[in-house]
Structures are given as C-alpha cells and as structure tokens.
C-alpha cells in the first residue's frame, strides 16, 4: 500500500480556477490536451461518471445509448458542470456524435462548445486533416481566450505531454514491482484525466520510488474496454489472487501516445493521435489491435484477456469475435463481459470473472 494523496476533480477545478485558468469538461476519448493547455485551459474529463442517476438524460437519449453517454449528459443536466467554461465533445462514435449535436442544437449550453472530428484509418491524409481540424480549434480557442499563443509555446506543451506519456509507460512496465492493488494503480493512473501535468508527474514519480525488485506472484490479466468502472471489477480480480497486469482501455493505455516527428506543432499532435495505440474509435484493423493486445500480454506475462465492454458500445462489439479467435490461436484465453457503469457489478459478472481466472490458472 502506498500513501499517495490524490486531489479530487472538484479540488482541482477549484484550485485551477482560483489561479485564473479556464476549465474544459471533456467527453471521451481522444483529444489534444496540449492544445487546451497552451490556452491556459485545464481539461477535466467526464467518463460518466459511474453511478450517476441517468433520469435526466433519458429525456434526450433512448435506452439503447450506452451508460457512458447517458451519464455524461445527466451529469451536465444535473448542474455538475456549471462551473466549467468549455464543453468538449470529440467525435468518438455515433452516440458521442449525437451528444455533441444535441448539445449544439437543443440543449445549447452557456459554455463554449468544441467538437473534434477524429479521422478514421491511419495514413497521411488523416494526419493532414486532423492538423487542419486542430488549427480550426486553435482559432476557436483564441477567439474565446483573446490571445494567440505561438508555435513555440505549443511545442513546449507537446513535449511535456510526450514526456508524461513516456513516464506512464514506465509506470506500466513497473506494474509487477509495485505494491499496489489494481484499484490503487488505476486510481493513480486515471488522475491524469484531470490533474495538471506537473502534479500528475510528481505522483507517478513518487509511486515509482516504491518499485521493488520482487515481482507480484499473481495471475496477470489484460483488461480491455473503455474504462474499469464500476471499479469493483478490479477488486473482484484482485480477490482471486490475480491482478490487472496491463490494459487496453480507452481511458488509459489507448491514449499513451508515442512521440511525434513533425516540427509543425499541429501536425505533431495529429501524428501522435493518429499513430497512437490502436483503438476501435479510430477504426484500426483487427491485426493492429490483435498485435497490440498480444504485445501487452507478452510484455507482462499476463495469462488472459478480459474484454470488459460497456453495453451498447458498438465499436467495441464488432472486434470481439475475430479478436477472440486470433487470441485463441495465439494461446491467449479471453473472456467477454458486458457492463453498465451505473449498476453495481451483477453476481453473474463476478462469477464469470472468477471462473475465467480459475480456468486460465488451471490450464497454465
């Protein structure tokens, strides 16, 4: 156990506001943190939050829209985002496309609304398009903020993010040497969703100081999906004397981007996102995703993959059958389970996770 004090989202928002920063509430998944930072805007991500009462969103969204989007809208409608200055809705999927559009056309928030179109496929036209899309957002933000930061400043922010990405990767690689429960590990990791870079960096560095030589002697699991919520899922895994060795989650590993190459800051951010880890919402191929997940398992000696899918998330669904087959050919067992971030983990889910761990342990 580590004693790390991680401030809450609320505390961060209040502190940053008092320093004169603007706050952006950002919906999932990919967005240019650097670009907001250079305008003195602190992004605070809205992943649900879980266990939100979604009755207010039910007036705008049908029941077959996933719980992440339902909760995200409810959270806004309940007034929890009144404090923020901007609302950012990346075009991650058809449901978030709808959310951005409903915000713009019907809900009409008092805050500035920023939408980002994320190109699908991985090629040079896409990098060029995304760079242009980022320039458009730059213009929107400079109008809002009343100043135009230069390329050099933006480059500085990019380099900061690149360093943090490297550090996060190191944190992952040290996972087996860290005396942390899965819940603790992910609480630390996910504080990046709302902490300023220096604060997040010092927490990671502190945690890494406690890395020991001895490795955890537990069954490692790769957790794949959008987000580890409700977090009880992590406890269920730990209770079986297993742990999440690494993940392929949208909120975590899928956003640990590599370094860009371009000297043009917009292009560089675009390169980072487009060429980053494979993600269904970026439309990566089956092979790209399979190779990536397999490399994660190889890196950590994880024994199995749990696809932890938010119900109604179509981008994730489509990959499961073929990925499962490819993994199975590579002797990696996998389990697909569905969840709703607003409901406590059903007993069935718990049983399935436990049985899966029993199965992989017995066969290894």
């Amino acid at each position, binding site marked *: 156990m580590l004693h790390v004090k991680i401030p809450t989202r609320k505390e961060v928002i209040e502190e940053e506001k008092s320093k004169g920063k603007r706050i952006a509430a950002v919906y999932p998944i990919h967005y240019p943190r650097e670009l907001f930072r250079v305008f003195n805007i602190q992004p605070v991500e809205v992943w649900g939050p879980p266990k939100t009462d979604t009755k207010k969103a039910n007036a705008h969204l049908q029941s077959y829209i996933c719980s992440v989007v339902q909760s995200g809208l409810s959270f806004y409608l309940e007034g929890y985002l009144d404090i923020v200055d901007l609302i950012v809705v990346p075009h991650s999927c058809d449901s978030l496309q709808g959310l951005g559009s409903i915000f713009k056309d019907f809900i009409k928030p008092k805050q500035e609304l920023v939408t980002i179109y994320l190109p699908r496929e991985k090629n040079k036209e896409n990098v060029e398009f995304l760079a242009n899309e980022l320039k458009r957002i730059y213009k929107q933000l400079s109008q809002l903020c009343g100043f135009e930061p230069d390329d050099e400043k933006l480059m500085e922010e990019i380099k900061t993010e690149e360093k943090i990405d490297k550090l996060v990767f190191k944190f992952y690689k040290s996972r087996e040497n860290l005396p942390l429960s899965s819940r603790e590990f992910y609480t630390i990791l996910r504080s990046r969703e709302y902490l300023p870079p220096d604060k997040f960096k010092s927490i990671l560095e502190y945690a890494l100081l406690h890395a020991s030589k001895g490795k955890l002697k537990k069954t490692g699991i790769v957790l794949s999906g959008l987000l580890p919520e409700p977090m009880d899922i992590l406890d269920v895994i730990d209770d079986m004397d297993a742990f999440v060795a690494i993940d392929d989650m949208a909120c975590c590993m899928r956003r640990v981007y590599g370094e860009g190459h371009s000297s043009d800051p917009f292009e560089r951010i675009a390169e980072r996102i487009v060429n980053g880890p494979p993600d269904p919402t970026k439309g990566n191929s089956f092979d790209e995703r399979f190779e990536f997940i397999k490399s994660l398992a190889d890196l950590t000696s994880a024994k199995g993959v749990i696809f932890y899918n938010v119900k109604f998330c179509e981008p994730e669904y489509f990959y499961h059958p073929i990925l499962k087959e490819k993994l199975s050919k590579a002797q990696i*067992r996998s389990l697909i389970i569905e969840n709703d971030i607003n409901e406590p983990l059903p007993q069935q889910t718990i049983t399935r996770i436990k049985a899966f761990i029993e*199965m992989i342990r017995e066969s290894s």
Partner: protein
Amino acid sequence: METVKSIGIDAGSTTLKIVGVNEEGKILFSIVEDADPKVEEQTEHILNKLKENYDMESSKIVATGYGSNLIKADKKVTEITCHAKGIYEYFKTGGTAVDIGGQDNKVILISKNGKVIDFIMNDKCASGTGRFLENTAWRLKIPMEKMAELALNSDGEVKISSTCAVFAESEVISHLSRGQKLEHVIKGLHRAMVKRITSMIYTVGFNPPLMLSGGVAKNKAVVKMLEEELGEKPRIPENPQIMGAFGAALIGLSQ
C-alpha cells in the same frame, strides 16, 4: 457409519443442493431443497441432521453458487468449474456441458482431460433461462410439469419472436387472444428458449457429446428440441440438479 470425505454445497438462486462423497468420490447422499433466504442457517440445519447418520468429522466443505459467500466452507469455487467437474466425472468424457438454471444458463466446453476450455453465460437478462418459461406458466396458471407436456404433445407451433422474458409473456397473451391454440403457443415458447440456448452453444463452438445439467434438464420438451436443433441426443444424468454440488464435493477430495 460411513465416512464423508467431502461435501459440496451449491447454493443457487432458487434451490440449495448438497452432496456428500466418500473417498472414491461415490455419492453418499444428495439433498435438493428450495433455497431459503437465510441459506447459511438452512445449510447448517441440514448438515447437523446428516451428522446423525454420517461421520462428517473430517469432511472438507466446498461451496459454490450465488449464496456461497454466506456459507462456511474450506473453499469457494465458481459454478462453472464445479459443473464442469461434476459432469466430467459423471460421464467420464469431455464435450459440451449445458446447465440451464433458474436465472442463468451456462455452456461449458470441457477438454478430454476434464479442463474447462471455454464457457459462456447469459447476460443479465433472463432470455432463454428457466425464468422465461416460469413467467408464462405463472401468468397462465399452468404448472411447470404441464408446460412441457403440452409442448411435447402439440401438433403445431406458433413462432414467438421476442427473446425478452417480459415481452415474450405479452406476446404469448396476444397470440392466445387471437385464438391460437394454447399448446401451439407453449411449444413456440419452448422453441424460442431452446433457440437461445442453441445459439449460446454455437457461440462457444459445439463439441459433442452434449451433456445437460440443471433443473430444466428435466423438461422433456426442452431436451427433445435441443436434440432437434443440434442433431445430437443430449445425455442427462440421473439427477441433473446436483451436478454442481457433486463437482464441488469432488473438488474437496483433492484438497
């Protein structure tokens, strides 16, 4: 007094199953009761009574099922592993084990040497589970045994398209109100349930033989239809309900 080497307790959502085995894994007793909300007391009561006839001094206890958290046991194992173990030891073969319970269906692929290769369970919704038939039986005030009989003897079949247990119920009512024969509708309802199970079987990949456990395995109409859909006669243990508890007891032997 015979010595009970290991006891398996399967505390399911609707029934409590307890099986005791000797050193060789032979079943000495098996008990099936409706589950009491206070399952821990119920279990203790049963075990105390059994002690009058059996030597249970050194028995290992392995618990499984929804209520297993409430039960004092040497080990807790999931129903998947227990059913696989029970079925494998009973039939002495690998294959596809299907357990159709009150609110859960499980399909388990068992390897030649008795290991779980893969498994699948239904989602939260009750489509295709025992509850699917029970809801309608209750609504129509027909006992469950009669449901299977009606379906078996029906000369026709109405297609039920809803897979949701709640929607299916209203679909049944609307067919009946339009003058469809009761047995045709009931047969259609069985078919919808069996189709759902078949699709789960294909999802993990069907590997014969097909072996059934769980309360619904006693429903002859379901068994017959499964055979029709899969082209494979299911094997059914004498007492399909106790397979999980039996497997749990066997796991206790190796402790």
